[in-house]
């Protein structure tokens, strides 16, 4: 580093010289060089350098500077800034004198502030920060509701959207979009892109212009208009090498020429980060049906219009339109909410629960540090009394204590930001895919401001507590009290200490109960049988087009099943835990209810050995056979739940049911299979029917599902080869490993249980430290008394019992209070619980008992130590 090996550290030298008054600079520089060179031969270069650096760590560097400035008055009548500097320096020194105390307090604070800051930065990024569009708070979503199916956010049809857009123009400018897919034919094979088709006004509604070129126009959004496309920044980079000449170029996608008109800026990820392109919807109200609900509607509110007003006006409008076009939209409603509320709808509740939980952790941490300060304040009563005796005013003493708290609080906050960075990394990793907008989560100025604010708030609380308990200015009492060993916490201080312990235990109990409920839910959830065997099952989707698509699907199935290593194979419209499922109304023959009340029932279209591949048990009748073909009578297999709902107590095989409208044919049930949890482990199995592919020729794509002991990558490779040989232009998409689908469905509950469990454990640790500290302190304060008792013949065991009982009263109070808190708060967890009530007695009993046991140990250890001490020695220590 330095040109001369024996040179003193250059940085240190520069700092020293910068801080030294000019007339002494040469002398000091020379002295240090001399001292440094004298040390190198004896103690080595490293120690000499350390010595040099240590010369820096002296408050007198500043004193030298200050005292030599003639313009400043002599030290006695200090100015505010200097006083502050003095207070802070004093605080740092006095904390450094008791490093154990300082370390415990700092670690406690760092954990409390760090965890709170980490969770707050998630709340900030996800819930508080506006979405990345201009005036994002003016964006709203407009949904259909279907109360009878329990759908709150359903899509709309094009004619409905067009009517709302025109009729509701006064309240909002409405745009609509729907997912779209395109196939790109590259030399390496066909590739499927996902994107959205949207109305031309989506661009202006969002208010984000294209980075290159432009968004598409109204003229391009008409039926029959030439095809154009807008690319995402990511797709442009990945597939077109970021070529700036792309605009105006023609690209063949799904067999048709599309002109690229624009590229969106990086970070534009509407409506999700999966969007790779945007196309004009080219909607035709004359052709599109009113019951073809496929559009998601977004709008920008006009000035002065609130979400509630928009909801009222659009609902009234929709009701009018629905009344004019009866049938299609019977029983539908309309719902408007802000885009932001829609995006964060699943995360909001959990994040606020986390924030509440972490605030409780911070509360315990603060109580703990306040307790430490109280105990320490007692030790220092004598010092403070002396200061008071030599003339320090009460305000001055309070300021000293406040300065100490401020130094503690700010140092704890600084460490806490470090802790927050680490925690945040873990939270973001865990929360990816669970929490929307998690990419927006970071430590920014808002979060740092928050950390600083809570640090100062903590400091203020300790400072006030400390002042309240010790800064009473009673000089003689302080001096007298200080002479006896430690027994000098004022009565108010002692009472505070004990109530802090009760609060700590209470909060720890409340948090642990919440965590216990979530953990139990998670265990229950993962122990739930999904109704099928996901092990060794791999799936991938194909969506061929054209008249021969069904033959192609069948050929893919046959060849896949014949591949070595493949046990069985099947085709299915949807997988358990997949996202393609459909539902329709259905009625059994002979029931008289009207269509409108027909419950929605999940359907699936299958071919091949579907039930064997997923190991779904066939309970009655038969599965599908080759004879269930296009022209033969329609057949279905139903699950147990549907069988029970439609034909309670009867054999469903041979009965008939009708799916969809009254013009659909009757379908005969030929078999009953076991229930499968279709969406998630937490949802009870829905009534489900299965129909054969040969009789359901409307499907637009099927999963090829394979059971094989071969590793998933090998199976997918084989499947790709099969498809590539049969139809090179057909992409294989949506590769899914069944076990991953299942475990993904429990990721959110696992995330919640894990976070709350970590908070719970942290709370218990801090609370136990608190109980231990207070009991240990009270034992040390009573050592003389206990020593005398032992000397007078008291049995040590009796004394231990007495001390432990004393502590247990506090713990019991805390546990009782904590249970009360949990009774009040656990209802906020209700939506997260599975198979466990919010007041689950077993969890409550276990957690309360565990905490009581831990608290007993925390009391027993110091009590034991006091009774074991030699009574003579204890008394002599005075």
């Amino acid at each position, binding site marked *: 580093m330095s040109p001369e090996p024996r040179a003193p550290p250059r940085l240190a030298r520069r700092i020293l010289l910068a801080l030294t008054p000019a007339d002494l600079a*040469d002398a000091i*520089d020379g*002295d240090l*060089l*001399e001292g440094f060179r004298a040390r190198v031969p004896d103690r080595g270069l490293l120690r000499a350098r350390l010595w040099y650096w240590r010369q820096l760590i002296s408050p007198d560097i500043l004193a030298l500077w200050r*005292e030599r400035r003639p313009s400043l008055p002599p030290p006695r009548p200090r100015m505010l800034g200097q006083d502050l500097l003095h207070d802070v320096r004093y605080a740092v020194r006095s904390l450094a004198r008791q490093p154990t105390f300082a370390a415990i307090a700092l670690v406690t604070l760092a954990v409390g502030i760090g965890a709170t800051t980490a969770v707050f930065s998630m709340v900030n990024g996800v819930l508080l920060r506006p979405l990345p569009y201009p005036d994002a708070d003016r964006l709203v979503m407009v949904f259909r509701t279907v109360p009878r199916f329990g759908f709150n956010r359903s899509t709309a049809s094009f004619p409905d959207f067009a009517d709302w857009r025109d009729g509701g123009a006064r309240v909002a400018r409405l745009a609509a979009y729907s997912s779209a897919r395109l196939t790109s034919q590259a030399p390496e094979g066909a590739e499927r892109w996902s994107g959205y088709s949207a109305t031309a006004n989506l661009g202006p509604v969002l208010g984000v212009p294209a980075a290159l070129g432009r968004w598409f126009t109204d003229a391009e959004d008409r039926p029959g208009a030439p095809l154009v496309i807008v690319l995402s920044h990511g797709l442009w980079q990945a597939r077109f090498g970021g070529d700036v000449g792309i605009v105006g170029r023609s690209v063949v996608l799904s067999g048709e020429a599309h002109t690229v008109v624009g590229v969106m800026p990086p970070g534009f990820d509407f409506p999700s980060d999966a969007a790779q392109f945007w196309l004009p919807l080219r909607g035709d109200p004359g052709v599109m049906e009113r019951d073809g609900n496929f559009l998601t509607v977004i709008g920008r509110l006009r000035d002065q219009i609130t979400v509630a007003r928009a909801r009222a006006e659009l609902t009234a409008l929709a009701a009018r339109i629905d009344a004019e076009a009866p049938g299609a939209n019977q029983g539908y409603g309309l719902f408007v909410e802000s885009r932001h509320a829609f995006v964060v709808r699943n995360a909001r509740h959990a994040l606020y629960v986390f924030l509440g939980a972490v605030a409780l952790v911070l509360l315990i941490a603060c109580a703990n540090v306040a307790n430490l300060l109280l105990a320490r304040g007692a030790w220092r009563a004598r010092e403070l009394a002396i200061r008071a005796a030599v003339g320090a005013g009460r305000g001055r003493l309070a300021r000293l204590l406040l300065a100490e708290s401020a130094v503690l609080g700010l140092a704890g906050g600084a460490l806490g930001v470090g802790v927050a960075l680490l925690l945040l990394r873990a939270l973001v990793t865990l929360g990816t895919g669970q929490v929307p907008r998690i990419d927006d989560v970071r430590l920014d100025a808002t979060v740092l401001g928050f950390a600083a604010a809570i640090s100062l708030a903590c400091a203020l609380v300790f400072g006030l507590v400390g002042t309240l308990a010790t800064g009473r200015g009673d000089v003689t009492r302080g001096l007298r009290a200080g002479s006896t060993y430690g027994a000098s916490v004022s009565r108010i201080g002692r009472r505070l200490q004990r109530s802090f312990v009760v609060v700590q235990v209470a909060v720890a109990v409340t948090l642990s109960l919440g965590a216990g409920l979530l953990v139990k839910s998670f265990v229950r959830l993962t122990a739930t049988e999904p109704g099928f065997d996901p092990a060794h099952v791999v799936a991938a989707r194909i969506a061929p087009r054209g008249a021969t698509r069904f033959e192609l699907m069948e050929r893919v199935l046959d060849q896949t099943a014949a591949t070595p290593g493949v046990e069985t194979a099947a085709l299915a419209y949807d997988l358990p835990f997949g996202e393609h499922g459909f539902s329709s109304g259905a009625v059994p023959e002979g029931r008289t209810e009207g269509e409108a009340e027909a419950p929605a029932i999940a359907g699936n279209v299958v071919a091949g050995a579907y039930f064997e591949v997923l190991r779904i048990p066939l309970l009655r009748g038969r599965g599908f056979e080759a004879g269930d073909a296009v022209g033969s009578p329609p057949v279905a297999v139903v699950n147990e739940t549907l069988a029970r709902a439609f034909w309670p107590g009867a054999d469903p095989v041979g009965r008939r049911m009708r799916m969809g409208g009254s013009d659909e044919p009757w379908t005969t049930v030929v078999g009953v299979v076991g229930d499968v949890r279709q969406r998630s482990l937490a949802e009870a199995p829905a009534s489900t029917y299965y129909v054969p592919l040969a009789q359901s020729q409307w499907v637009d794509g099927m999963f090829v599902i394979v059971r094989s002991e071969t590793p998933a990558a090998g199976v997918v490779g084989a499947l790709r080869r099969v498809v590539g040989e049969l139809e090179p232009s057909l992409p294989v998409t949506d590769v899914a490993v069944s076990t991953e689908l299942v475990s993904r469905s429990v990721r959110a509950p696992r995330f919640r249980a894990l976070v709350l469990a970590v908070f719970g454990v942290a709370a218990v640790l801090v609370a136990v430290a608190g109980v231990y500290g207070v009991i240990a302190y009270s034992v040390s304060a009573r050592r003389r008394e206990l020593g005398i008792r032992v000397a007078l013949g008291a049995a040590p065991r009796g004394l231990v019992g007495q001390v432990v009982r004393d502590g247990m009263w506090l713990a019991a109070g805390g546990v009782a209070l904590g249970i009360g808190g949990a009774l009040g708060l656990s209802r906020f967890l209700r939506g997260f619980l599975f198979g466990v009530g919010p007041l689950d007695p077993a969890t409550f009993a276990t957690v309360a008992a565990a905490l009581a046991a831990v608290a007993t140990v925390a009391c027993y250890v110091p009590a034991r130590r006091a009774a074991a001490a030699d009574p003579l020695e204890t008394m002599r220590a005075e």
Partner: protein
Amino acid sequence: VPEEILGGLQQLVLLAVLRLGHDAYGARIQDELDRRGGRAVAISTVYVTLDRLERRGLVRSWLGEPTPVRGGKAKRYYALTAGGARALQQARSALTRMWAGLRVAGG
């Protein structure tokens, strides 16, 4: 201005200056405080103390010759003034009087 009592470190520094005689400059004083007095202090503390003593007229200082081992930087030498010698005497007799007839346990 009433005579102030010498601080502990001030006494030690004065004694070091007295003991070092013609060789009393920063690095040597710091060394002497450490080796003989058992007080390892930073160089700035030495100078702050010397500075205060100088402003009270108890020491005086002058620039000496530069030497190679100091990178060509001049030394600042210190010596006791008459006032400094008197202050040391007073401090000593005060201590002696205070100690008369006393014993401390634990030595």
